[in-house]
Structures are given as C-alpha cells and as structure tokens.
C-alpha cells in the first residue's frame, strides 16, 4: 500500500485532509498516522491494481481497528454474559473472556439430536472454517453452543464435532462446541438475539438454530445472518464484519480497477 501513497496524494489530497481534521483527536492514543492510513486506504485501493483474490488478504490498515471508539462499556459484546461453559474436551472456559474478547468469532447454535436445521448450520460452519481463513488468515474462532445442554455432554459434543470435521487439532481456526447449565445457555441465547417475543415459539428450540452470528470484538462490529443464503452472500456478509481492512472486508467483491 505504501507505494501507492503518491497516487493518493495527487488524487485525494483535499478529501484526506478533511477526514484527518475531523477524526484525529489531539491527544488520544490513536495515532494520526493510523487515521491517515484509514482515510486513504480506500483511495489507495482505488489506485492500485486489482488483487488476486486467491492470495491472502492484504495487510490490515491498523492494529487498533476500533480506535477511539472502544472504551470500557462501549463494546456490543458487553451484552454477552461471561458465563462458565464446558467444551467438547471437558475444559471449563469463560465464554467472553476466554473465547471472544478481542477475537474474531463465528457463533452458531445446535444440538446433537436436532433433525431439522442444525445439520445445515453446522455444515455451513464447517465450510466457512475452510473458506474464511483464505481471506482472513487463521485468526478466527468458531463457537457452537448446544440448545440441549441436558443431553449434550462434552462426550456427545465431541462425537458431533468429529462428524463435522472438527477433530482434535484445534491449533488453527479452532471450533469449540459448548455446553453448560441450562440457565447459562439460556442467557447466552437471549443475549445474542436468538429469541422470540412469543413465549411459545421462544420455548421451541428448533426455532433457534437457523442463524449465524459473527463478531470482530476488537473492531466492535457484529452481524447476524440467517442460514440458507448462498455462499457468496454469507461469505461477503461475514467478511464485511470480520475483516480489519477494506481489502479484507470486500475481498469477494471486486473493487474498481
């Protein structure tokens, strides 16, 4: 991106300077340089040759993606309860502090005995686990929470995980299956919006396994999409939220040449 900066300077000078004036606070830890990078990144893309999509995504614009907008209490993930849960290997983890904080995550709900939509959701997670690292790198975590914690013990979840290709090697793009107390699971489910104002529908667990939630906690961006979109729609919608740069966020949508 650096070699494009001259082009940027010639085409976008007035725009960039306006953006900097508006966005750079005098004494915050956000560096003026990173704001500049953000403001000019799209212009740089505009000027640069089209990237080969098969290559890994371009460098991130900033290692402080949310910049001055992240202060204590301002994260959308504050709504996610930091409850203790059990993984498929029987490990006790804290949902937020161990698995979500500052990470990029995909979250789905499932349960092992589910005959309806869950296989589709879990199958989609399985495919996304392969596809997304091509654009985002391996820095990504998948979480699947059971809606049937009484039945779904860690052992059951382990069996289910293997059926969806999530073996014991969890070193890159880990996929963690989670069970726990019914109350804890309920609190996560409602916090993430897998709920219906009609109590009858809300009590029916088959209604809650058909969405996918994805978050980039460091950038404070979250999104949810229904399962069942085409892969292009799903991938482009997720990248827009999880990507840390314009290049990552629009990796499957060609930018101007």
């Amino acid at each position, binding site marked *: 991106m650096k070699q494009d900066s001259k082009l940027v300077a010639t085409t976008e000078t007035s725009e960039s300077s306006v953006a900097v004036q508006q966005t750079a606070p005098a004494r915050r830890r956000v560096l003026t340089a990173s704001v500049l990078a953000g403001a000019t990144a799209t*212009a740089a893309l505009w000027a640069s040759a089209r990237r080969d999509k098969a290559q890994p995504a371009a460098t991130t614009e900033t290692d402080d993606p949310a910049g001055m907008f992240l202060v204590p209490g301002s994260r959308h993930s504050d709504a996610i*309860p930091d409850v203790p849960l059990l993984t498929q290997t029987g490990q006790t983890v804290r949902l937020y502090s161990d698995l979500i904080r500052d990470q990029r995550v995909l979250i789905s709900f499932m349960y092992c005995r589910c005959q309806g939509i869950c296989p589709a959701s879990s199958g989609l997670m399985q495919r996304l686990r392969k596809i997304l690292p091509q654009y985002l790198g391996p820095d990504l975590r998948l979480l699947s929470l059971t809606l049937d914690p009484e039945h779904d013990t860690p052992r059951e979840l382990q069996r289910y995980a293997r059926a969806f290709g999530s073996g014991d090697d969890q070193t890159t793009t880990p996929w963690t299956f989670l069970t726990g107390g019914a109350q804890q699971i309920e609190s996560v489910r409602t916090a993430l919006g897998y709920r219906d104002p009609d109590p009858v529908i809300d009590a029916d667990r088959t209604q809650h396994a058909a969405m996918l939630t994805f978050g980039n906690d460091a950038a404070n961006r979250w999104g949810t999409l229904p399962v*069942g979109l085409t892969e292009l729609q799903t991938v482009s919608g997720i990248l827009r939220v999880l990507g840390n740069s314009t290049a990552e966020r629009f990796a499957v949508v060609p930018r101007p040449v």
Partner: protein
Amino acid sequence: MDRRSFLRSVGQVGTVAGAAVAAPAATQAEGYRRCADPHLKFVAEQVTKWAQELRDLNYVQPREVRATDHIGAVEQGVAPEWYWFHPDQSQPHQHPPLAPGAARSPRPQHIRRDADEQIVELAACDFVTQIIPGWVTHVLGYGEVHRSADGKELSCQPQTPGPAFNVRLFHPLIVRVHNRIDPHLHLEVSVHQHGGHIPAHSDGHPNFLILPGERRDYFYPNSVPLQADLQGNQWVPRDGEWDTNETQSTMWYHDHAEDITAHNALMGLGGLYFLRDSREDELRQQGILPALDHEIPLVLKDVCLQPITDESLMLCKVRDEVEKLKKAGESIHGEARIHFDPFDHNGTLGNLVLVNGQAYPFKAVRPEAYWLRLLNASLARFYNLEFWAVHPTTLKHRRLTFLRFGRDSWMFQHAISQTSVFLSMANRGDVYLDFAQCLAEDWKEYWQDDQLQVLMVSTLNQKDGRGPGHGDNEATATELPRGAANELPEDRTDSLPLIQFRVQRGGEVVPQPTHMTEQVELRPHEQLAIPENVRVREFNFERGRGAWQINHRFYDSCTANVVHDLWSTELWILRNRSGGWWHPIHIHLESQQQIYVQARNQRGERIVLKRPDYDVHRFCRDRNIQLELSAEEIETADEKWKSSFAEMQNHSSDDPDKLKFDQTVWNLEIKHDTHVLGPNTEVHLLMRFRTFEGPFVFHCHNLNHEDMRMMYQMDPRERTQSDVSVADEELRVRGSHWYFASNAPHHCHEEPSGGAV
C-alpha cells in the same frame, strides 16, 4: 400513572434536567439489555418538557454545476441516465462503455427537464451534539458542503436530521455524497431517496455502497413518468404525456446500506425531501394551502439514551467535547449514548421520541392553519398521533380535528376530516391543522391569558418489535390499535406526548385566508385500470428460520427475484402470514394503488376494502389463487366496513371524541409507497414500472427486519428478443457499470473460492 398525573407531568415546565443519573456501566453478567433497563433508561422526568423551541429546519442550497465539479468522476460514478443529457460527453471523465446486457433505458425523452441540473454536496459524518441540553451524544448525520467559486471547501456542518431538500418538479439535481464517517467505524452508506422516481444507480440500492472516504454522484431527475399503453403485448410510452398526477410532495432520504441500515438510520442518517410544483403554488395562491412559513415539518424517531457520567467511560470524541464545554463554563452532565443492540433483530424501540432531533420541543403558533408534514423515521415504532388541547386547570383534554390531505409522497384528490394519524415506519402524513377551531365559543375554557396548549400525542401501545397491540392485552394483537378512547383509562401510561404547540391569540391579527375543505380538488388522481391478462405476483411475508422471509426466501443481492417488462402494470398480492408481526412493506420506484384489502379495524372487526371493478373472488378463483375469505364474507365485511366508515364520517363538532381512526391506512383512492401489513393483512395492489431499468428493491421497513434480509429485488427491463423467454424467471442481476464506476466484473458472476454452496 393515572391520566391526571400523566397530563400534569407532560404539562409541567420547570424540572431541572439531569440532576442525577445513577448509571453503572453494563457488566458482562447482565446479558441482553432492554431499553427499559434502569441503566439505559434516560429517566423521562429528568428531561425538561417544552423547554426548547423547535428549531427551524435547514435547507440545502443547490448551486449551478461547474466544470470543476467533474460530475461522475467520483469513486462510485453517476447514473448512466445522466449522460443521456450530455451526449457530447463534454465532461472530462467519460462514462465507461456499457457492458453487453447492461441497462439501456431511459432514452433522454423519458426524463423531462425544464432547467439545467444543479448540484448539492452532502457529507455523511459522525459528530457530537446535544440532543438533550447538557448531555453530549455521538451521532451520524449529513452536512452540506459549501464551496467557494474555485472549488475550495468552506464549511460543512453535519446535523441530524440532515438538511431538508426543497426542489422543483422537472428541475434535475446532482447530489454528491461523501462518506466522511470516521474510518474506524468502517461504516458504508447508501442514500435512498424514499418516495421518488429515481434511476437505479441513484436509488440508494443496498449494495451500491459508498465506502469510507468515497463519494457517489446521485442523479435525481425530479421528473414524473410518462403515461404508457399496452399495444399488442408491448407496453409503449406516450411521447410527451407526463403523468403529473404522480408528482410527489413529502418525501425523505435515509441510509439503506445492506445489513447496517438499522444502525445507520438510528444513529441519524435521514432527512426530508420536498418536491414542489405549479399545482402546489396555485393551491397556496388560492389560500387552500397555508403559506410557506406555516409549514411545520416534523420528523419522529425514538432512541434509547444511555447516560454516562464517568469520563473514563465516555467515547473519546464525547469526552473531548465535554471537557471543552466544561472549560467554557457550560453546565454539562455527561454523555448520552444512543443505545444500539446489534443482537436485536425484532425491532429497535427507544424510550424517548425525538421530534426533528429534539426532545419535547415546543412551537409557538397563531390560531391559524398550518401544514404539518409528518414523517415516521423510527426503526420499529408505530405512531397514532392526536392533537389534544389541554385544559389549564382540570387537565382535561379535547381532541382537535384536522384535514388529512396526503399520505406517503402524494397529496390526495380530496382531503379527509380526521382526528388521528396512524403512521407506520416510513409513512408520511400531510395534515392541515387549523388552530382557529379553538377560537369557537365552546373551546373558551381551554384558554388562559390568550394562550392555549395543544399537545401532539401518540396514543399507541407498543412494547416490542412485533408492532402495536402486543403487551398487556394479547387479544388486541391482530387489531388496529385503539387510537381514540373517550377518556384515558386510569392505568394508561402509553400515551407519548411529543411536541407542544403554544397557541397565542390576540395582538395584531394578520388574516390568513386559508380554507382547505374536503370538497376542494387538490391534485387529480387517476385510478389505474386492471389490464386484461394482468401479470399477478404473490408475496407472502413470513416468519422463518428465526428471521423473516418473503416467499420462504431471504434477500440475495445477486438475484433479481422479480423481472418484468419496463412500462408494464402488474397486480401484486402482499400477504402477512407471520403471526402477530407487523411488516410495513415499502416498494421503491413508483406509487402503488390498493384495490383490495383484508385487515381488522381497531374494534377487532374484519374489514374488507374492495374496488367495485375488481371481482377479487372470481379473479383469484380463475387463477387458482388462494383467498382467505369466501365471496359472501367479502360482501358482508365490505358492508360492515362501509357502515362503520359512515358512522365515523358522521361525527359532529360537539362530539369530537367519537371513536375514529385513520382512514388512510388502507385506502383505495390514494397512492401509497409503504403498505401497512398488520397481522394477517392482505393487500392487492396495482403498480407500474416505468422509466428506469432495475435493480430496485422492496422490503419491510422495520429496519431490523430489512437487515435480516426481509427484502426482494425487482428488475424492470426493456423488452427485447433475448429477454422475452426469461422475463418471468428469477435472474441474476445484470451489469456492472452501475455497481461501481468501473468495468470491474460484477461480483455476482463469480463465486468465492472454496466450493459451491
């Protein structure tokens, strides 16, 4: 709270804002936060009511286009239609050649222009402001960019709602929009001009994004379509016959970016857009419409404000502002942060309704007639608005009557006398409110010292994103909400006062000769004929997969769900089959006319509206279309509806509190662009698809539902040999030139790597 204390609380002028707000920051263990949670609730009593005067709207100031503007030479280009006016390509930056199969229309003769185009520059920005005096809020908004003659930027003051437009029919406009929102927020924008007749490139399509730092040149022709006829099986436009009955009046613009529309609109990206023409001038000259200085635009939007008094928890931009203001000696209490929950897909409700971005403003008026231009800009809240004169001592209230003369973008042929305005999201209401009615002898007791207090109140009970009618009484879930009970029940706490009108009589009286009546013709309206062999399409709006679907499908930016012939007329059937959910359905591009409606009124009675020339039962039977009601049920319901209408119309001035509700919610004699689909409601409508090739969208205007992909694409195309055979199928959207300003391949023609779905 009983009625008396409710009125006392809304009538008071004197509590001090923001004395103390105990608001611990949310902790991890709390889980889902509702707006009503104590730590989010901006305690209503702490906001002084009727202390701020309603600010006048700012209007954009279009200027002539200069060579240095380089129209189209921005990241997202300009609509190809704009170039039809510039065949010499005199602009230094040429438009890329059209790709094969790309949109071809319109011909230049399909847009009328009576003046050279002008330009307005808007910047979408994030900035800090005080919604509640003493509290600093970080918002999004639009600012107009002002430039010197040599193109140097002079100023840009962002505001929310954004500056209003005041444009003339047949005067085209370029609106250059900059996305200057802080790049750390990674927010794309797309500006939809709601209610207009706009080329696809400039319609604010959810995927035609302006990325941070980018610009787009929107082309608003401000034209109306040509009339068209069916010749053989071809629809042919009539040269030079402009369908001026379609002239819009009260429109608006707002963000429409895919998946983040709810967020962007909630944070403040919206504004008003007024189109004016010679007919409106005439009506004003004849004294039928109030003078321009008697127009009161009112944009309603509810927000939930989270009070933060600990500086270490404030957004940095807010903290800077707070420190600056405190140093300047101002009394600042802290940050009021707009609460947005990305995990709420049911419908975002706030607990504070803002009027033009202000909380509880007042407006000084004379006992004269005013044009109230109402807009519901909320994400999920419905309003039933009434105007109450409040007795100065007993606090008894009495409803004012008014003439309703417009819905959505269009003025009616004849105004309708009403006492309430029901607005679903995106609905607009044009109201002729004459405060002079309160000068009559029987209003005497409401005056005190030549002053009269009139409150605009919403009487609707809405507890969640499903829509009104839910909450305490499930039985009302399928009914139109009760808008006008004679007396407020003692336990009723759901009436929201929104703005106070202070009517002042006496002094020097300037006679206002305005006299709109129900008899005077405002703007001609032509009922659309049902073409023989009309194409019928059915759309079922349903709950599915924990979200909302249309015909069991979700929005797919690459799929043209409806492909039809340009210039044709079609009959669409919209059905809400999602239990208790309300879905206001907005269809872009043109007005629609309802010809059959099946719904329930506020008494829970089934109501049926049916145009006499539409034998709905036979029509549907012949086409194997399912209809819920039998022919008999349709007839009897129709009669019942007519009689309850007649009853409502028989109100007299001594009985103004008679149970009535907004007769324009469903109405066969007016134009619509956003159809109120209450629970189990069915609407049959006629619509034309003229002038512009697609893609356009139609969608639920509960913006959370829209973001969860309750949206379809429609793509009118000029009929050619190659299109004929596939014209009814779902197709991939075409072309690339309107997507980005380059010839880059359209992403819909490629699959991401990693295998098929």
